[in-house]
């Protein structure tokens, strides 16, 4: 989708970093954003990127906690990929675990119910991914995307249950050689929120890449929307990836990336 971002992450056009034998590595990409800088444009990037690869072998399972399916369909049309067609071709799957018809338990009233909810969600995800592998073969490359995981916390799910869910999905994706993308809120103003901080830091310790979306440190400006920090997770073993900060500008049809201080809105 965005070649500049792929280049900064040292990813090849068709797939993520490959091993010496050429097979793709399974990766966990953690995205964090804040109220003043929304990181959902990265979600659309990973959706579009996966669907534009080999259509016969690429699949996306989007766990949409933040938006409805129509939102992703409309944004996809603007960005140049058709999720309706992909849904019909079974290359794009949407899961809404927070549907109004499904009551979400609160761990403060019933700790067991919180655990049961995430286990049920994981079962749904695992069944979907493993059944596809059984019917379509081991060459299928999956992209499991959570948008966004903080909403489980806000809905009353305990931190350890959310971490269990992400850990289970990560183990599943590693086995399938796919990649896991998780968006989580990390507002600077909520550093006193112990649960949010514990969630984000724990996810950071499990990740390969950490992409942090922030507003500009110098304030709001017309030409630049915000800054994107690309950081190396503790588990990444790519010596050719170098952490850096990019400025990004969101336009009506795309997102432009540039080196810090060199965007067209500044010069």
């Amino acid at each position, binding site marked *: 989708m965005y070649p500049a971002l792929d280049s900064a992450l040292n990813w090849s056009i068709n797939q993520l970093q490959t091993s010496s034998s050429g097979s793709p590595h399974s990766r966990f990409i953690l995205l964090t954003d804040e109220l003043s800088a929304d990181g959902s444009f990265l979600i659309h990037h990973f959706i579009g990127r996966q669907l534009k690869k080999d259509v016969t072998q690429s699949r996306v399972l989007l766990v949409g906690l933040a938006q409805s399916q129509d939102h992703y369909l409309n944004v996809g049309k603007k960005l140049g990929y058709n999720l309706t067609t992909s849904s019909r071709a079974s290359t794009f799957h949407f899961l809404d675990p927070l549907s109004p018809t499904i009551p979400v338990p609160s761990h403060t009233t019933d700790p067991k119910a919180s655990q049961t909810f995430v286990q049920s969600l994981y079962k749904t995800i695992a069944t979907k991914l493993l059944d596809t592998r059984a019917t379509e073969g081991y060459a299928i490359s999956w992209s499991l995307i959570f948008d966004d995981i903080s909403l489980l916390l806000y809905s009353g799910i305990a931190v350890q249950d959310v971490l269990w869910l992400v850990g289970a999905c990560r183990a599943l994706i590693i086995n399938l050689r796919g990649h896991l993308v998780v968006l989580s809120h990390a507002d600077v103003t909520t550093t006193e929120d112990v649960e949010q901080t*514990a969630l984000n830091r724990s996810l950071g310790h499990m990740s390969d890449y950490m992409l942090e979306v922030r507003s500009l440190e110098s304030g709001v400006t017309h030409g630049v929307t915000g800054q994107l920090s690309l950081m190396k997770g503790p588990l990444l073993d790519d010596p050719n990836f170098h952490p850096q900060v990019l400025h990004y500008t969101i336009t009506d049809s795309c997102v432009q990336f540039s080196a810090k201080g060199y965007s067209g809105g500044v010069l």
Partner: protein
Amino acid sequence: MGRPKTIVLDAHSPTFQLPRTPALPQPTIPNVKGVIVTSLDDLPARIKAAIPLATANTLILIDSMSSLTPIANFPTLLRSFVYLTSETTRLLLPYHADIPNPTPPPITRDALLSHLCTTYITVRHIKSSSDEKISIDINSASSGVADVMHKKKSGKVVKERVVYEVGEGGRLKVKLFDEGTEVVGSVVAPSEGAVKPPPNKDPTANLSFNLSLTDSQKVARSEVELPYMSAQNDSSEVKANPEQIIHYDLEEDEYDSEDPDADLDI
């Protein structure tokens, strides 16, 4: 078949194994014996059972304690791990201290770990102002500073700071940091595509306007007479010849001798 040098007790994957969910295949690694542990309560016993299977000197690595801290009986579990240590068996516990505990116990995890262990190593990145004398690549994830606290059997506590760097192949280079000396570590070799910092940073190198001088401009600049240099030179001559100092006679500027209170009839 000889004894395996490495035994891996997998207490991670079984936690994600749910009823009626397809099981994930376990990878096989040469010369590594894998054991599945389905319950964390059984973990200390399984570790103890595995120790005689390994070589004489055994290192137990539990990766990581952060996964176990949410457990309610964490202190009991930790103590059971510590009891496994002996003269030939050492215990290594990685712990992420930056993750806060949403339900803080009466005794903090950090206090508990530092109390029970004999060596406490805090690994951190170089960002503190107290690290001014440490000059290594701060953007490298493979280098940093480690504060080591070791409790000897005699009761003496030794504290030291080391600078480390993980090289190629995972080789660890450690250098003791002395307060009186400056530590300069090796710079991480930049690979292709990385931005190389210039060895001697020239601030005028990449500007859109020119700040440098041509040779003729340098010559012209050297020939410019500074306006106050002559005054400085003159003052040096005056000091050498004090007779040329001009004194103003203050007697001309007399004070009015009339008594301002003369009209008072006291």
